[in-house]
C-alpha cells in the first residue's frame, strides 16, 4: 500500500510544480490581446470558416480496432507473468486466443480496412 502513497506524492508534487510555474509566469508575462493577434493561425491570412474539418473516418475505425487489440494485450500481461506456474495447458489456451484474434486481424487486413487512404 505504502508504495502507492509515493505515487500519489509524486502526482501532487508534479501538479504543484506546474501550478507554481504558471502562477509565476502570470506575474511576469505581458498581457496585451487584440483581435488580430487572437485569430487562429492560417498562413497569415484571415481564417476561413471554422475548424470544422471533415475527417477521414479511418481514424475512427482504427480507434475501434485499437480498443479490441488493447483488450487482448492486457490479457497477455497476467498470462505472461504466471506463465511458469500455469503449465502447458495455458500455453495452448493462449495460442488459441491469439490465433482467433490474428484471424480477426487477417480479416480486417484482407478487407482493406488497415490500408490508409
Amino acid at each position, binding site marked *: *500500500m505504502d508504495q*502507492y*502513497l509515493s505515487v*500519489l506524492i509524486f502526482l501532487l508534487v508534479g501538479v504543484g510544480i506546474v501550478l507554481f510555474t504558471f502562477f509565476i509566469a502570470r506575474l511576469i508575462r505581458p498581457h496585451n490581446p487584440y483581435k488580430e493577434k487572437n485569430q487562429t493561425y492560417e498562413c497569415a491570412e484571415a481564417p476561413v470558416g471554422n475548424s*470544422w*474539418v471533415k*475527417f477521414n*473516418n*479511418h*481514424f*475512427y*475505425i482504427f*480507434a*475501434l*480496432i*485499437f*480498443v*479490441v487489440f*488493447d*483488450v*487482448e494485450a*492486457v*490479457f497477455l*500481461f*497476467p*498470462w505472461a*507473468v*504466471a506463465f511458469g*506456474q*500455469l503449465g502447458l495447458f*495455458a500455453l495452448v*489456451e*493462449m495460442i*488459441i*486466443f491469439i490465433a*482467433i*484474434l490474428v*484471424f*480477426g*486481424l487477417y*480479416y*480486417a487486413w484482407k*478487407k482493406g*480496412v488497415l490500408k490508409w487512404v
Partner: protein
Amino acid sequence: MLDLIIFYFAAVIAVGAAVMMIMQRNPVASVLYLVVSLVAQAILYVQLNALFVGALLIIIYTGAILVLFLFVIMLLNLRGEHFGGKQSRMGRASKIAITVILFAEMVAIFKQVAIPERIGTQAAAVAEDFGSVEMVASHLFKEYLYPFELTSILLLVAIVGAVVLAKRDKTEKMEDA
C-alpha cells in the same frame, strides 16, 4: 487513518466527477469528467488491493474506450450547441423526481441486503497475494477458461463489426460518386 482519508477523497471525486459528467452540455467536457471519475475509481481498486483491476480500468477504459469516444465526438464535431438550449422546467423537474425515486430505491435495497449483517464486523482476512496479477492469472486461465476463450470470439465479432462499418461507408461513397 491515511487510508481512510484517501478513500474518502477518491470516493468523493469519483462520484462528483460522475455527476459533473452528466451535467455537462459539452461532450468533450463530459468525457474528461469521466476520465477523472475512472482514475479515482482506479485508486479505490488499488486500495482494495485489486491492483490488476485498477490498472485494467485505466488501460482499457481511459486509455482506449474514452479515446474512441473522443474520436467520435471530434469526427462528428459535436459541440455544446448540438444538444439544444435550456430544458423546460417540467422536463427538469421530472428528471430530478425520477432520480430521487431511483436513489431512494437503491438505498432501500442496500439497507435490506447489505448492511445488517455487516455492521460492526471486520472484512474477512484475504490471502496474502489477493488481487495480485498472478492470482488473477491463475483464476482466469484455470477456472474461467471458457469465458476467457469466449472473450476472444467476442473481440473477433467486434473486429468484424468495425470492418463492416468501414466497408459500408466506402460503398456508400462509391455510390455517391
